[in-house]
């Protein structure tokens, strides 16, 4: 048995997470209090209180999971996959909740839960265990194709049933990253990457050419609004443009905490997907860069833990979480800065959203648990 002195605990990561959570709550209050005051009969802390509850719950979950050896979860890999499929399908039943015109949530005993969040965690677990089960056969063409095919049903369901393209992309992204790490090959991934870029360019090109036809779909309009938000200022480009106003008016040092103007009802979903633009407006480039650095620090810690994990299963779990958080942060910031077309992606640990923070903290617990498996002499 290892003695207590020999075991490792990644306090850097823990404090990074705690700091982001605390910072997130402050920004959430700043962003949501004015609107909450109007919508919730003067309860300006409405969103803060709900988020605080989920955060406390999430922290308990994190500490519990961190103290469970991560191999405990391996046996639930297949079950998790199956449960995700069932939960996603349940959205179609009366248990499903519709918000803002999209049916993406489940009502579980009065608490709304997004099955896509469960699916992300389940996918990480499933692929990590699959990699271990396949062993060396992963180097074969067949193994590679199996790895790539495994996440597809879930992605298709998330996109097809809940019409949630962004979650489908995130799940796909996490999977691709995990397959990438598990396989020794580079060439295939470079080809996949190039094919992806070419495909995206083709789609954009086709949509721009079809700009004048009336048959353009919901997402096609979003792409046009992305290319020129000011031309679609009254419709698809509205939210993006409002976000850009917020970001641009922040300048280098920002207007100061609490002094955002765009949060006063101008920017829709300010406390949710668009919260990063309020950070930019209030804290400026300085604050925005600090937040990005905190996430970079987190990803760096993930890399360190994954590289020193006692075994491949642990490493793959951490890689999955790393992919989840990195992809979500990148996509969120890219959306608010209009670097990519607008799609609903929340900013981890900061955006308002109970199930998101709950599952993210659970994932952090897993990472910390893997970290605990590191023997100091291995470092």
């Amino acid at each position, binding site marked *: 048995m290892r003695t207590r002195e020999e075991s490792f605990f990644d306090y850097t990561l823990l404090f990074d997470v705690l700091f982001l959570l605390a910072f997130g709550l402050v920004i959430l209050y700043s962003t949501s209090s004015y609107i909450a005051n109007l919508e919730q009969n003067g309860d300006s802390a409405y969103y803060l209180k709900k988020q605080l509850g989920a955060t406390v719950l999430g922290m308990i979950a994190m500490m519990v999971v961190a103290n469970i050896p991560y191999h405990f979860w391996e046996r639930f890999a297949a079950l998790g996959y199956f449960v995700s499929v069932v939960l996603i399908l349940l959205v179609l039943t009366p248990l499903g909740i519709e918000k803002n015109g999209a049916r993406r949530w489940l009502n579980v005993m009065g608490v709304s839960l997004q099955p896509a969040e469960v699916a992300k965690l389940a996918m990480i677990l499933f692929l990590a265990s699959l990699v271990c089960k396949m062993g060396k056969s992963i180097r074969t063409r067949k193994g590679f194709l199996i790895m790539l095919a495994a996440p597809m049903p879930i992605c298709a369901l998330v996109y097809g049933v809940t019409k949630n393209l962004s979650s489908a992309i995130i799940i796909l992204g996490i999977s691709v990253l995990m397959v990438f790490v598990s396989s020794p090959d580079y060439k295939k991934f470079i080809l996949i990457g190039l094919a992806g870029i070419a495909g995206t360019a083709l789609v954009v090109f086709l949509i721009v050419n079809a700009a004048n036809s009336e048959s353009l779909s919901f997402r096609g309009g979003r792409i046009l609004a992305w290319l020129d938000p000011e031309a679609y200022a009254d419709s698809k480009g509205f939210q993006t443009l409002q976000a850009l106003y917020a970001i641009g008016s922040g300048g280098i040092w920002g207007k100061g905490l609490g002094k955002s103007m765009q949060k*006063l009802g101008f920017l829709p979903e300010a406390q949710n997907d668009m919260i990063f633009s309020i950070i930019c407006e209030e804290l400026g480039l300085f604050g925005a860069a600090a937040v990005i650095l905190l996430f970079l620090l987190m990803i760096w810690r993930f*890399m360190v833990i994954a590289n020193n994990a006692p075994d491949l299963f642990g490493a793959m779990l951490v890689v999955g979480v790393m992919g989840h958080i990195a992809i979500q942060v990148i996509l969120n910031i890219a959306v608010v800065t209009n670097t990519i077309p607008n799609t609903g992606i929340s900013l981890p640990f900061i955006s308002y959203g109970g199930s998101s923070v709950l599952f993210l903290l659970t994932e952090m617990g897993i990472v910390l648990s893997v970290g605990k498996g590191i023997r100091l002499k291995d470092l």
Partner: protein
Amino acid sequence: MIKNKTYNRKKIVTAFFLFLVIFVALMGRLLYLMVFSSDYYMEKAKQLHERERSIKAARGRIIDANGTVIADNKTVCTISVIHSQIREPDRIVEVLSKELELSEEYVRKRVEKYSSIERIKSNVDKEKGDAIRAYNLAGVKVDEDYKRYYPYDSLASKVLGFTGGDNQGIIGLEVRYEDYLKGQEGTILTVTDARGIEIDEAGEERVEPVPGNDLYISLDMNIQSYATQLAKQTMETKEAERVSILVMNPQNGEIMAMADVPEFDLNNPYELPEGTDTGDLSQEKKQELLNAMWRNGCISDTYEPGSTFKVITAAAGLEEGVVTVDDRFSCPGYIMVEDCRIRCHKTSGHGAENFVEGTMNSCNPVFITVGLRLGVDNYYKYFKQFGLLEKTGVDLPGEAGTIMHKKEDMKAVELATVSFGQSFQITPIQLAATVSSIINGGRRVTPHFAVMTADREGNQMKSFTYPVTKSIVSSETSATMRMILEQVVAAGSGKNGYVEGARVGGKTATSQTLPRGSGRYIASFVGFAPADNPKVLALVIIHNPQGVYYGGQVAAPVVRQLFENILPYLGEMDYN
């Protein structure tokens, strides 16, 4: 347990650096948005957050030669409602319709209209505005504002002009000097949330309005008031259509009075004269009547000057040397020009007379002779030299030009009729300006009102200068003309213009309006004093007087009465 392989580690590091690169790229994007595009988005956001309300600038006042304010501003209120702040719509409708005397539906429509701010009524008296403010109704805004106010109502109405709903000049000096008078609007910028509700802690940004400059003019309200009174009186006693009186300083062109009765009430410029049936008038017809009421006959209407124009013929003849004061003429009561027989007003003829006597008699054959001696070329030369072909350049909008024969169409008969003031038309201001220039030593002056602009404290901002053309006649000719015209008043046709104790020069005119034989006449008189060094010149024109219509009998006494009053006032009366 499967171990972590080296390639796994390498790939994890690769993934980390891939993410790092993307993060750096996003930071670059943020740098671009927040530093290089910051001004652009900040400005856009500011426009989105700020509501702008304008503050009217106080319009500059108009001040007469004595420092009397003749166009001023008074405070009025604009009542509006802000939809999102309304709490008791029914009570607002009730109070506003009662206080503002508006129909309930009219007010309700505006109160219930979904807009950020809706104007209910403007130009509300300050007392009424204060009363509405005292109700303390949420969502009702009372903004103070300026409205033009003319303390002398109709006095000099056609000169001053008035302003419209946005305080912009519509006619007269108000429009001519708009740029100086209007000032610069200010703005109140308030910050609002997405619903348009003002955010108190953000405060408001004010750009103070810049008041317009005061306009100082040469008009003297005492003289104006007396001239208007005389004109009204004459119009009544002579049952005339219209009477114009123009008083100016012949030395520099400053106009001291310009009356053109009937005038109109500047404080109610859209009210047609009493007795006008407006019931079934179309909008166009009504506007036509208003335009006619606002029309300043002294500058916008032309007429045949008649015998007063003999001043110009005489000056041209003397200047050219085709006639001297001692030249002898004989008037048989008519004169033959080519095969045309042109009658003198005295059909029995004036008999033998010299040039001075001919002028005193206003003898047509004498002036026809002088005109013919000059010839078309010379006559036209002087017509042009005296400035009669151009507008005078008076600083009022709407000046009419001269209607004159073309030089190539002018034959002996036309020349003959022009010589005694017929067959062409000029404006009253043109006659006054030309006579002024002939008797002031030969300097063509520009008739004008504006002297200078100044700020509210009276510090001069801009002083106006006007073109002067030197030597349109020699000073000798000018002196001779003064002498002759003094004789006209002292012992000739203009003797009714004589003022005891003063030296007055002048010339009468009686002209039949076109078409001839209509029995409509224009009686006029142009007079100046003191005759040796003229300080004031007055032109009286009476349109269509009933009964006696001779200028010498109808118009000259008006100038006499005017001079009797204003010469002592101007300090130009010799009490000996």
